[in-house]
Structures are given as structure tokens and as C-alpha cells.
């Protein structure tokens, strides 16, 4: 067993894990069910989290290797009462359907906008390529990322509704 300390959505969390335990399983065991398991082999992106600011598929990251790391999940980004502008944009743009890819998708958007504040459509497509969505055809997700970029850059009027 390995003792690991993670900073999980700003909260220091200590846990003991198996050497081969995956970060996704640890997070879900700790009650972070906002991180979803769609494939377990790093191909769908539903389990995306930010680890030290970088987007990773938590189902193929060993928890032990994340020791000391800072992890951000969708619930850490914002909540229904106090959503992050990216989350508000997803709601407003109609980018959410079944919602299973959504927590990972908003984090992929965050990872992009942290580095490229004003991405063009091709940059957004590239950034979301590892996050599969079977419902939306991606159009409104891309709209949402563009609109979030405008809001974050202070270029959007105050969102209504």
C-alpha cells in the first residue's frame, strides 16, 4: 500500500492506495463521483481532471504517481449555485445533453482557455479531441467554449437567464 496526499479541489486529502490503483478509482472511492468512468482505458475523456493544471484521463494515471498533486474536478470548478463561466456557457449554449461527458468536457475547456484565452474553432476542436461526446455533435460545445472565452476575457455582455 502507498500513502498519498492529494490536494483535491483545494482540500488536502490523505489516502492509502494500492500501488496500481488508478486516480479515477481513488477519486470515486473518495466520493468524487463527478469524475465519470466511460471506458477505463483512456479513450473517452469522461474521467478528465486537471492534475497540476494539465488535463489528464484519470483512469490511466496511477494515484501513487499523482502524490502531492493538485487535482481539479468539475465540482471544484464551480457548482450549480455558483457556476464557473465555462459551466454557465455550457448551460446557456445548450452544450449539455445526457451530461455524462460534460464534467470532463468543461475541464478540457478550462485546460484550453487557461493556455489559449481566445482560441479559434480549430484550436477548440483540437483541445476537445480526447473527450468524446455521443449526443451533441460537438457544435454547441464549441459554441459554449467560444462564449466562455469571451466572458472570461470580459468581452461579453452580462449573461442573462
Amino acid at each position, binding site marked *: 500500500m502507498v500513502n498519498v496526499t492529494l490536494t483535491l479541489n483545494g482540500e488536502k486529502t490523505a489516502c492509502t492506495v494500492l500501488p496500481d490503483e488508478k486516480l479515477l478509482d481513488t477519486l470515486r472511492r473518495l*466520493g468524487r*463521483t*463527478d*469524475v*465519470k*468512468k*466511460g*471506458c*477505463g*482505458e483512456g*479513450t*473517452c475523456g*469522461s474521467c478528465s481532471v486537471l492534475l497540476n493544471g494539465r488535463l489528464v484521463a484519470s483512469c490511466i494515471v496511477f494515484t501513487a504517481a499523482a502524490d502531492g498533486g493538485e487535482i481539479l*474536478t*468539475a*465540482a471544484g*470548478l*464551480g*457548482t*450549480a449555485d455558483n*457556476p464557473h463561466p465555462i*459551466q454557465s456557457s*455550457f*448551460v*446557456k449554449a*445548450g452544450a*449539455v*445533453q*445526457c*451530461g*455524462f*461527458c*460534460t*464534467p470532463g468536457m*468543461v475541464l478540457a475547456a478550462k485546460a484550453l482557455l487557461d493556455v489559449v484565452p481566445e482560441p479559434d474553432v480549430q484550436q*477548440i*476542436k*483540437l483541445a*476537445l*479531441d*480526447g*473527450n*468524446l*461526446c*455521443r*449526443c*451533441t*455533435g*460537438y*457544435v*454547441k*460545445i*464549441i459554441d459554449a467554449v467560444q462564449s466562455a472565452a469571451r466572458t472570461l476575457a470580459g468581452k461579453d455582455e452580462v449573461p442573462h*437567464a
Partner: protein
Amino acid sequence: MSDTSRLNVIGRPLPRVDALEKVDGKARYVDDYRIEGLVHCAMTLSPHPHAEVLSIRTDEALAVPGVLGVFTAPDVPVNQIGCVFQDQPLLAAERVRFVGDRVALVVAKTRDIARKAAALVKVDYRPLPSVHDAEEALKDVAPKLHAQGNLLAHQKIRFGDAAACLAACDVVVEHEFEVNYQEHAYLEPQGALAVPEAGGGVTIAGSMQCPFYVQSGVARALGLDRNRVRVEQAVTGGGFGGKEEYPSEVAALAALAALATGRPAKLVFSRAEDFQISTKRHRMRMRYKVGADREGKLQAIYVTQFVDSGGYAGLSTVVAERANTTAAGPYFFPNAHVDTFIVYTNNLLGGAFRGFGNPQVTFAIEGMMERLAARLGMDPVELRRKNLLSEGMPLICGQALPPSAPSRDVLDTLAQRSDFDRLRAEALEFNRTHRFRRKGVGLALSMYGCCLHAGGQHLEGSGALVQVRADGSVEVNIGGTELGQGAFTVVAQIAAETLGADYARVRVLPTDTRMVADSGPTVASRTTIMSGNAVRAASLQIRSRLVELAASMLGCPSREVEVGNGAYRQVPVDPPALRPEVSASAPSPVTIDHPSSTISQANVRFPDLCMEAFRRKLHLAASGWYAPPPKPWDKDTGQGIAYSVYCFTGNVAVVEVDLIGGLVKVEKVFAVHDVGQVLNPVTLEGQVHGGIVQGMGWALSENLVLDKGRCLNPGFTDYLIPSSLDMPQMDATFVEEPYPDGPFGAKGIGEPSLISVPTAVALAAGDACGQLPDRLPVTPETVLRWTAKDGNGQ
């Protein structure tokens, strides 16, 4: 009812009712349920496509620490399951009929332990010869899967005399088409939780489309009365048909584990299991013969098609019914002869998938139209226009096409919106100037019978429960489910519009068999119509009580009460004789048009009205029920009323083909849909975009590969569903001609969004290479074979 300009909620791009809880990950999918004492299940699956089960030894698995039980066929109270035919064991006893047939269920403290122990269940098999092609399976020499033989069913259409007519036709075209499976690839895998209840019985929560199927399926397998099985839909991460019939099996397994161990039990599939053992879009082979006169007037169609059901029946006969009935597409044929054979094989289970047999036949009939046009030297779009069905014309099942049916508007809008002739000219010009890249354009139409086929009409009734609280907030329960498609959002809009309530304060609760009567399945693009009409019926009852109350509060006759914009207000109607449509007994669905001089300021806000209603002990709850009129059907001839209404769709796709690598890139897809009336443009567009991309996947990259019934690419690494980089530019246009029996005139959209997309994309790929495709998907290998043949790619 058609004029939505006077509506406050309907037709507006309102945000989804369930979006906020999904963006922060709080929405609870089945695997997110945390519950005291929970145990986990895993399955032992057959590695053979066909084998006799000689013995099952469970001792080694039982000895694993943490294992609570290992269950096999004798533990299942009624081990004959199936949605239509009970031809399937929940756990196989003597014989396995496909790779993935279940033989044992292991229950353990953790999922890991359960999976490890499931691998230790020792099954002694005697492999039997297997059959992997539907037509081969019909031969005498083929191994028989079931006592009745391999022919599960034979469906027919007999309309006029197609054989005689074809013999006399000026032009006859004949061709064979074949389409492969498609995996739903919902992002959330199958899963169910079962909680044993005191006094017997079980509560199920799970990822599903059809709680009432799950209720009856679990009750049957476990020998329980249905009232002992409560089913609540968990938030469901996509369905697309894949969670229509299959979740009944998942839930029955979880329920078996729960009742046997006395603990809450959960079963969640791995992605690889989901690929191998859940249902797929049916593989089909279709032989078409079409005859026409020299002017291109269609005369006769003769179809022989084979539907590969896999090891068990599932919903195959129901899916096939749609392929059978709509085999001629949206075209008028005075003579038709269709034979649809539904056949058992040792392949994967065929089942419900968005379009439900229709995308397959659309590929065939549209391929025939292209071939016929080429033979006649006619423009293929002109040939389609010439033969397009319109309202009142007979379908091949003999039914007169009912309203609304704006088929011509759909085609004309598609041609204009896409500027089809220019697209074709541009592609030709591009191809003249490029050596290794080619552009192609494809157009396809489809006709989809909305809601259930006559054969399933006994399931068509649908209910809703609407309750208005004293503070003016509203709770809605429907029998339909939310899978991501937006059903809860549109029914909330319908309730808010009808009641005059605030949309943001309408809450649609998870679908629960305790709240609403059996409303049939959430399939067939029927939920907006069925649940929507039921919600409207319930809301209208409450509204008429509130109108009476408002009249007494405002001191006016109830016929002068107008509902809308969050209030009930008095609008003096004078003289009444000029406004015969306004009456208290039949509330108008829309606000009343009136000269501005008569507007009164007297009004009572909806929450105040509700509080007053509560004080006066009025009943502000109502259940609503909607069932369409009966549809007579003769299954021996395939003649009768097949569907209550039809949706027309057209797609144009533009692709670019890389002749060196064989890759097809879809650049643009146009979609035109006849939707009756737009209820929410955002959710509607969302359905269309999703349908386009899913349809495009089946046309090109989603190629499920089987080796003697074993899926060789059971994951997203090798089974390629489109990503953000694959999506084309999309353009969705809606033709609005209200459906008289739809809520506010609406029809369904879920399936039409996909149906003709694969064909348009495949035809475009073929067009780029000077070919007419007859296989789906059009893989790079196909393209390279095409181009090698005419020497283009060299």
C-alpha cells in the same frame, strides 16, 4: 394552435431543466449511487458462439474472500426472458448461443473481487458448429439455435402485384445492399442497482430508457408481481435505443443478486462487455428490385431482406417491422412485395438503435433511386421529386399518408438551402483541378413513422402527473424518460405554457413507476408527442380549475380569463358573439387575440392564484393520459394503418476524399426536418447535430469487426466514433406544418435526425470516386478498392 407567436414558453430557446446539475457533475448516474451495504456483481460469459454447457463449477470462485455468492441458471426463478418472445435465459443452462451469453453471476463486496471471481467460474463447454450469416442460417445444413429453427419470423408487404408489374416495366434495376452493425457507444455503460425491500420485492435504479419494460422484465424473471418491483430511472448517460430492451436484463441480474443476498446489489458493465454483449444496430442484407416507366414514374418494388437477430429475438421482429413497412422510403409505388426474414445466428444481439431498421432500408432505397436515375439518364433529385409521396397518397402498406406530411417542402427547402446544384458544380470543378483529392455530394431523403408501429400499439398509452404547489412551483412526472434528448425540458415547457406558470419553477422529477401508469417505452421518437400530450391533458384540467378561481377573484366570467406571462388576467370579451372560440369549457391553448382598447389591467399572478387555490382547498393535481386512435393492421399482407403520422427528412452531405489514404472527410451536412412545430430550437438543433454525427460515424468509421461472433474491436481505440475533429459543418432547417394531434403541433425528432445521414454521406463518398456504394460503412479500404479499380489513386 399552429401560431406560436402568441405563446410565451413554447418555441423559445430556453435552457434545459437538467443542465445545471450536469455541468458540475452532481447529477447522479447509477454508478454514482452510494448506499450502505452495497455489493457488486460480475458476469461469467461464454467465450464460444455456440456450445453445450456440460458443467459449471463455482467452488473456486466461491472460495475467494469477499465473494457472497455465485449464481447460475437454477437460481433464476423464471429463467426465460425476452421483451417479445421469451426465448432467452437470464443465465444460460444447457446451451450458449453467442459470445457473451451469461452463464454465472458473481456477487462480492467489491467490483474487483467480483470480476476476479467471475473469471474463476469453471465452465465445461462442448463447442457446437456455429452460423454467422443470416442467409446461411436459413439453409438446411445450418446448426439450429432454437427448437423452432433459425427463422424467427417472416414479415410481408403485399400491395398490388409487384412481380407481374416488374415483368412489364420499361426499366428494371436490381441490386443487393449490406450494412454492418453499429454500436450505440453511449458514454455511460449499462448499469443497474437493485435494493431489496422489506416485505418482499425490489427497487431498481438504473440507466435506462424504459422503466416499465424493466418493471415487467424483472417481475417476470424473479416471479414477482409487478407491484413488488419499483423502478426509478437514474440520470441516464445516453441511450440511442441501446437502453430500450437491454436494461431489463441488467436489472434482472442485479435484482437476482439483491434478493439472493438480501443486500443492495449493483451491476455496471465494462466498456468491453458493453460492446460484446449488449444489443447493436442490426446487420442487414437487402435485395431490391425496382421498376419504372420511361418517364421515371415508379411502378413496382420487390424486396427480399434478411435481419440478423443474433442468438435471441430481443426486439428484432419489432425493428424489422419498421424495415418491412418503410422499405420503399418516401416514394409512391403502386405495387410492392416485401419479404423480411428475421433470423437467429450466433452473432451479436441485434436490437433497437436510433432509426430502428429505417436507416438500413433508407440506404437501400436511396441507392436504388440513384441507380434508376443513372439508367434512365435522369437527374436523381428530379426522379425523387417526381415520385415523392404527399398527403393522401397510399403507402405500400395501403395507408393514405396522413397529415401533416410536407414532403415536397422538405425536398425543396433542402435543394434551396444547400444550393445543391451549385455544390455539385463546385465538386466537379474541384475534381477537375485536383489529382489526389476528390469532392463528392450526396443527397438522401427518408420517411419515418413517428411513434409505435401498429404491431406495438398496445404499448402506446402514456401518462403524466402534474402537481401545482401553493407557492406556484410545479412538479411533473411523466412515463417517458430523459436520456439527454431533452424530453424533460419540452414537457416542462408544455406544462408552463398550459398552466401559465414560470418555466424556471417547473420541476420534472425522475421517471418512477410509482408515479405514472405504464406509459410504454421511450423510443420511436414518441416522447414529445405522448408524454407531451399527457402533460398537456393534465395541465389543462388544473388550468380550468384555476380559470374558475381567477374569474371569481377578478369578478368576471371565466370566459374572460386569459392565461399567459405568469398571470391570469381579465380580458373583457365584448360582444361575446364575435368571439365564439372563447369559452370556459374549452380553454384556448393560446392567449386570446384582442383589440388593445379592451385590455384590462385586472390580473392575478400565478403564485398568488395558487396560494389562494390552496387556501380554498382546490385540487391542483391531475393525471393526464394520451392514447392515439387504434391502427388496424393485417400482418399476413402488411396492410393497414402502420403509424399515426410520418416525419420527412432530407440530408445533403459534402465530402472530400483523400485518394491516397482512402479517408473520407465530411465537410458539410445540411439537414431539413419536418417537425410539426418547433418547441425548443436549442434542444431540437442539439438532436439534429447529434444525429448527423452519429449517422456519419456509421457511414464511415464505425466498423464493428466480428470473428465468429467475437467482437475484435470492443472499445473506442479501434471502434472509432466521431470526435470533435471529425465533425462537419452542420446546417439544420425546420419545416413547420403542425401535426394536428401533437402537443402544440409537434412531432418527434430523435430518430429522423439520423436516418438519412449515413446514406447522404455514403453517396457523397461514392460520388467523389465515381461509384455508387452498396456497403456500409464506407471504409478507407472501400475507397482504395474503388480508386484502384479505375486507376485514380495511382
